[in-house]
Each structure stands twice: as structure tokens, then as C-alpha cells.
């Protein structure tokens, strides 16, 4: 066994430079995935059959197909159909957002249904229209309850973004692979990349715990 971290020591800054890329994919996908998830969850609870069926079929498809296949479809397949070439960033964010929305919509749906129906009735009796009270009254309460699940989803997303390394995007994983290829080492740079992902996830978890505490201050 010959592990030699000293040979990759100097390359750590290079791998660290992948962090902004990874975070960029993650953040954009979390935001778009969440917004789309809200829309899908509203479709699911709308009581309007076609919308409900559409949203359910959507979730079912994204659950049933490997993410890397979806990513390849968007990145390689769509150009073949339309002639439009997505950048790795576009393809990644589109795929991860669509995918995340499928999962998040289930979580949000459950969160909305768990909010006491008296809240809805109080808002309705004040003359507040549907979308407005959903956004101002119901969603904030639902989000508070499902925050841990949403954080989990963000963590999954962060790790999933490593798939864009297959499209050549220079995220944490890809940077580590580049270092490995240059130095004919694999174990060490990958371990470093793993540590970076781990630290990011832990930071996210701590941040979420603090946020949760802050949100529960008024209970």
C-alpha cells in the first residue's frame, strides 16, 4: 500500500475551486426545484383531476428513471431533437430541478395537508383568495414542518450534482479527477473530494438546525 497525500497537497486549492461550481448547480436546482415543486403540489391538492393526474404521473416518471439517464437525455438527446445545445450548467440545473421537484412536491403536499384546516377557513372568511392565502398563510406553516425533509432533499441534490462531472463541468469531483489524471493517483484526490462534500453537507445540516430553532422560537 502506498498512499501519498504529500503529492496532492499542492492540488487541494485546485480541487477547492470546484466548490463554487458545485454550489452553483445545487443552489439553482434547489430554488427552481422548490418553486416547481410548489406548483406540482398545488396541482396535486387542487381537486382538478387532469392537474392531479399530470402531477402524479410526473412524480412517478422521475422516481422510476435513473437521474443520469435524464441528464444524458437533456444534454445529448435534446440537441439531437431540436438542434439546441444546452451548456452543462443548463442541462444540469434543468435535470436536477425537474427531478427534485418530483420528490419535493410530495413533501410539500403532505406539509400543506398537515396544516390545520381552520387556517384556510380563517383566511377564506377574511376574503383572501386561494393563491394568496396559500402563499402567505398555508405554505409558511407547511414549510416549517417539512424543513428537515427539504434539507434532506437539498443534501441529496448537492451530492447528485457530482453527476455533471460526466458532462465535463468542473465541479469538486471533476477537479479531483483532473488532479488524479495528472498525477496518476486516484485514491488521494478522491478522498479529498469526499471530505469536501462531507464538510459541505455537515455545514448545511448545522445551518438547517439553527434555522429550525429560529423558526420554532415563536411556538
Amino acid at each position, binding site marked *: 500500500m502506498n498512499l501519498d497525500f504529500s503529492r496532492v497537497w499542492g492540488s487541494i486549492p485546485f480541487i477547492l475551486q470546484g466548490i463554487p461550481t458545485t454550489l452553483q448547480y445545487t443552489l439553482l436546482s434547489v430554488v427552481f426545484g422548490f418553486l416547481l415543486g410548489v406548483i406540482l403540489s398545488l396541482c396535486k391538492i387542487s381537486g382538478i383531476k387532469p392537474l392531479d393526474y399530470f402531477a402524479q404521473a410526473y412524480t412517478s416518471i422521475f422516481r422510476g428513471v435513473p437521474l443520469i439517464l435524464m441528464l444524458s437525455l437533456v444534454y445529448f438527446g435534446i440537441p439531437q431533437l431540436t438542434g439546441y445545445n444546452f451548456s452543462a450548467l443548463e442541462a444540469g440545473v434543468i435535470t436536477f430541478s425537474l427531478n427534485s421537484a418530483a420528490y419535493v412536491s410530495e413533501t410539500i403536499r403532505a406539509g400543506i395537508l398537515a396544516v390545520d384546516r381552520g*387556517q384556510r*377557513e380563517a383566511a377564506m*372568511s*377574511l*376574503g383572501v*383568495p386561494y393563491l394568496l392565502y396559500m402563499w*402567505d398563510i398555508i405554505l409558511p406553516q407547511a414549510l416549517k414542518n417539512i424543513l428537515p425533509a427539504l434539507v434532506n432533499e437539498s443534501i441529496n441534490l448537492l451530492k447528485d450534482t457530482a453527476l455533471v462531472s460526466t458532462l465535463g463541468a468542473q465541479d469538486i469531483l471533476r477537479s479531483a479527477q483532473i488532479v488524479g489524471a495528472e498525477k496518476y493517483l486516484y485514491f488521494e484526490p478522491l478522498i479529498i473530494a469526499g471530505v469536501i462534500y462531507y464538510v459541505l453537507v455537515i455545514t448545511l445540516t448545522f445551518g438547517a438546525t439553527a434555522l429550525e430553532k429560529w423558526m420554532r422560537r*415563536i*411556538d
Partner: protein
Amino acid sequence: MTGDRIIQVEDLNKSFGKLHVLKGITTNIHKGEVVAIIGPSGCGKSTFLRCLNLLEEPTGGRIYFNGKDISHIKEVAKIRQHIGMVFQQFNLFPHKTVLENITYAPIKIKKIDKNEAKEKGLVLLAKVGLQEKADVYPSRLSGGQKQRVAIARSLAMEPEVILFDEPTSALDPEMVKEVLDVMKSLISTGITMAIVTHEMNFAREVSDRIFFLDGGKLAEDATPENFFSQPQCDRAKQFLEKML
């Protein structure tokens, strides 16, 4: 003190699936009138009240508000701005402060200027005796205080009618009075109210009319004097014997 008919109900029917709850109620409520709705549990009091502001959609008959048929109207939200409601379980918005609870709808729906809404909200809070609670969250309030805030929140929209569904039933006995007192002071302003209640003494004292519902029908519609001294139907007699 009573004037035009503000709410007219014509042969109102409501079913939940196979369960026929309201069986043809016809009546009306005049401007400035205080109506107490009483009756045995499950007779349809809440359902009747909730039909008036269309929280439940009638399955038959008509409801008119200020002469306009609202039974199947599209713009329900618009109508509801003029019909306040106070719930047994208060239903304050837990993520908003007391003052935000009160100013939310005026700001968002009536588009009233924020500062103006706040000033008006504070005046309302003073009316229900809670101005010092403006910036706390509902979770910090007692039940009676919550219900007083809920009344203020409803008043903030300046409704023409307020519907109360057992406003004191979820309260500890020592808090009932503070809420009833606020309601009494409201009555003296001449606002129209429909109150579902089990507080017989209160109903007798403040109401202009008693609706006695039984089995989804309006079994009696009488002045409190007549109703309490000489109820017409047997069911009302039995009910009063149990309650008084």
C-alpha cells in the same frame, strides 16, 4: 333598530354526500339584528352558519346578501370580505404577530396603506383590551385573549355581518366572560351578528331573535322572550329543560 334585510335564506339545503344536514331553511336577518342560533349537537348550526359565508356550498336553495344571490357566485372571496367569521378554535395565524394577524387582510385585500392599517389595528386592539399584546405571537396568548384578537381581526375588514360559531366553547370558564363582554360592546355599535352558542343566558340577554334548529330544520324563529318563556315545539322544550 332593525332595518333592511341583509341576509335572506330561501329553502336552504345542504347535504354531505348522502347525509342530508340542512333541510329547507327559509329565513332572513335584518341589518343591525343579533340572531342567536341554538339547538342540539349535530342539528346543523355550524353548517347553517358556514353556508352564509359560503365556507360550505349550498346543495339547494338560495342565499341573498344585500339582495344579491350569492349561492353559486364565482367571486366568493369578494363577498366574504363583507361577512366576518369568528371560530370556536380562534384560528389565528401562528406565524404572524397579533397586529399582523389584524392588518394582514386589510393590507393585502383592501390595499390599505400599511401605517394606516397598523393605526387602525391598534385602535381595534384597544377596543378588545389588548393593545399591549400587539407584537407578541398568538402562542403567547390565553384562549380568551386569542378569541378577542380573532374578533379584532374580523372587525378590521369592517364587515357588515359577523358570524360567530361557538366563540366561547373552547375557553376555560374564567375566560368566557371577557369574550362575551367584548361581544356585548360590539353589539352596542349596531353591527349585525349571527351567533351559534350554548350560552343560553347570553343568548337571552343580547339577542333580538332566536333561531332554534332541530334536525336540519328551523324549528323556531322567535324573540328571546317568547322562546325562553313559551317554546312552541316539544323539542325546544326538552332542549331548554336540559340547558337551563
